[in-house]
């Protein structure tokens, strides 16, 4: 959705700052962002609000490339935010990349404020 916009990247921390199969929160103007680190050290980012009932996804259990929401147990695919199972809904993904061990979020300010 941001394809036409020039992508700017913001460094938010190191991969090792997040526990494996865990997540941490980046506070951002448009709302918190959950940054996940999988067991295989991949990094993904979703908005920290479950589309089901605003559950903080950063507090869920991470397994493979999935997170289970702490409030009612919906499971989301970290790669695209899609929920697995019934009542399909989608958590918002945030562009993220890792450069030399440093996590960078893609233009988070714009994407967040644009939808707030």
């Amino acid at each position: 959705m941001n394809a036409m916009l020039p992508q700017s990247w913001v460094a938010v921390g190191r991969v090792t700052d997040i526990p494996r199969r865990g997540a941490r929160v980046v506070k951002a103007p448009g709302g918190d962002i959950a940054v996940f680190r999988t067991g295989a050290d991949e990094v993904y980012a979703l908005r920290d609000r479950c589309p089901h009932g605003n559950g903080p996804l950063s507090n869920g259990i991470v397994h493979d490339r999935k997170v289970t929401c702490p409030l009612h147990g919906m499971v989301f695919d970290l790669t695209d935010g899609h929920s697995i199972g019934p009542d399909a809904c989608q958590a918002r993904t945030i562009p993220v990349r890792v450069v030399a061990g440093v996590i960078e979020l893609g233009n988070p300010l714009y994407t967040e404020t644009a939808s707030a």
Partner: protein
Amino acid sequence: MTKERLVVIGNGMAGIRTVEELLLRAPGRYDITVFGAEPHPNYNRIMLSPVLAGEKSFEQIILNGRDWYEANGITLHTGDRIEGIDRTAKTVTSVGGKTVAYDKLLLAIGSDPVVLPIPGKELPGVIGFRDLSDVEAMVAAAKTGTHAVVIGGGLLGLEAANGLALNGMEVTVLHLMGTIMERQLDEAAGWLLQAELEGRGIKIITKAQTEAILGDGKVQKVRLADGRELDADLVVMAVGIRPNTALGKLAGLEVNRGIVVDDRMVTSDPDILSVGECVEHRGQTYGLVAPLWDMAKVCADHLAGAPESAYTGTVSATRLKVTGVELYSAGTFGDAGTEDIVFRDGARGVYKRIVLRDNRIVGTVLYGDTKDGPWYFQLLKDAEDIAPLRDTLIFGQGAGAQAQDPFAAVAALPDTAEICGCNGVNKGTVVAAIRDKGCCSVEDVRTHTKASASCGGCTGLVEKLLACTLGDGYQAQTGPKPMCKCTHLAHDDVRRLIVIDKLKSIPAVMQALEWTTAEGCASCRPALNYYLMCAWPGEYKDDNQSRFINERVHANIQKDGTYSVVPRMWGGLTNASELRAIADVVERFQIPTVKVTGGQRIDLLGVKKEDLPAVWSDLNKAGMVSGHAYAKGLRTVKTCVGSEWCRFGTQASMSMGVKLEKMTWGTWTPHKFKMAVSGCPRNCAEATIKDFGVVAVDSGWELHVGGNGGLHVRATDLLMKVETEDEVLEVCGAFLQLYREEARYLERTAPWIERVGIDYVRARMEDVEVREALHQRFLYSQKFEQIDPWAERASGAVDNHEFAPLASLVPLAAE
């Protein structure tokens, strides 16, 4: 060949049904002529009540209009009563002067309302409730008059009363017996019905003997034997029906209470048959429609030339047709030698009674919930042996039939039937998921529909739906269920293999036991973490990322993403400095809600996640530690005041409770574990619904286990009695350890004990060596588990990442 001539007298329900049946069997065999005294084509008499109530129009209750007679070549004379039968000439003659010859004659002339032989019975304004003209008279009376008196509190009388009330009249029902509808209802149901009708403004006087109807030129009052007089602009007599036999008598047929017929519905004249309420068959007369349908078939068989058909009688069931009242009655009750099964739900106004004789249903009364009426009635008619259903019979077909044929009941459910109450999933949705989405396991169905995803109570139903829908394609899982979809192994196997194979980490387990997923899932990971911790105390390193958020951050997540904090209050005791510290924390962190919990301590609700370490730090300073209100571990130890204060206390329950809590706090268990200590058998601490409950008695302590509040309440089993506090502590530790080592993850003590049996648990506890060993293992594990998680985190040394954001970004413009 000229056709045989059939003449039918009576254009009512039984007569015309017989003609319909005959047309099915032998169309065109007879030249049919029908005489009806009423000026209408054939209509559904039982629906006169809804017509009176204004819920249906007359047009809506017509069964066969005039075009039907025409189409079938039937000659219909309405409004023309037959007044004579000449059996020698084989003709009938009508009041209107018609004479018609017959080869076969059918008498279906119904019955008349009984008229009480009391003074004033012939006054204008006194009517029965039998045909459309009666309904029209009642509706007209309601337009001009105010007061109606219905004599007779049976089915007809009550339907009349309800209809009249709906037409705006003030209605009083007079009933001779103590209970209304006493032939169909027992006292309890009669009372419920009476209360309901009175709630609708209908006055009901039972044990009322009507003495006279008073009036000058028209009805004005009704007088009772006790002298009471009631205003009446209309009197409806609904005290019973009398078979219409006059015509039969006149013709010289054999007549008793009704026109006597044999099993072929043939009267004493072989060319004259009779059906309906006018007949007497095997000494029995009838007043409901169900028997008429059976009679009509047999009668039609004979007219069509099938001589072996026989009528043997009908048992029937009754429903009251008063909108909003659910009432069903069948068979008999109150007889000697019968047994009852009764169910009542006061709040819903439901009453059900099943009357049994020798394990067969002989009667049933249902009030408020009648959906199973037809099922009970079928069991009654079939004289089915209900012994195998007995336990669940009263709960109806779903519950009862499952015991017998689990699949039939499920297959019979309509698509709209709710399968999963928690997630509101109905049968249609589940079946569609199985058929169209290729779901072939409970797990699949759960994923696609959410059915059984919450409390799991409907898992069995879902399995049956799978079996019904897939037929042989469904491979029921045999043996214990796998832990989750990541493995085919059951909990007990995994636990066993962890010990035998010395598996000491989650990846080791997953590798050795061939997990089908890379990292497990949110359901097996916490279980494995627990099993490993229990098997290898001191060796296994707890994997925080395998814990549910509450156990990971040692507080309970709330719906808005904030947390609640519950400090431990040993045995429910607190003091001024703890309370002061709590008050300070509440003010300092602006905690919105402070609540006393059901577990005898104080809950601080709405704490922001990032404030948690600071809140804990302040509480720690006042000597308080985590209450583990979030843990699959030891929760609370409730106590009563006991002998320390209470005038009845026999032992010091408060200090016993504190000792127990000091020994056990911090332990992790398969599910939460709650305790209580009561100072005497009055049991004010509710110890008998706790996982481990202690009740003081004069001679020592009773130890109870396996209690549960929650969804399925279970009272404890008495484990044993001991004399000293040390014994209480030892049994407690040993019991906890047995539970820790042998129960499945997320299995509370109640279901665990139901599974393994209290005798097994008791045998382990009574074996002194086993008990001591268990207790020692418990104490050993406590060395590693009795660490205040709050203090660790408040220090900032542990899991800091949980509470501090990774980064905080500011708006672009400000950068």
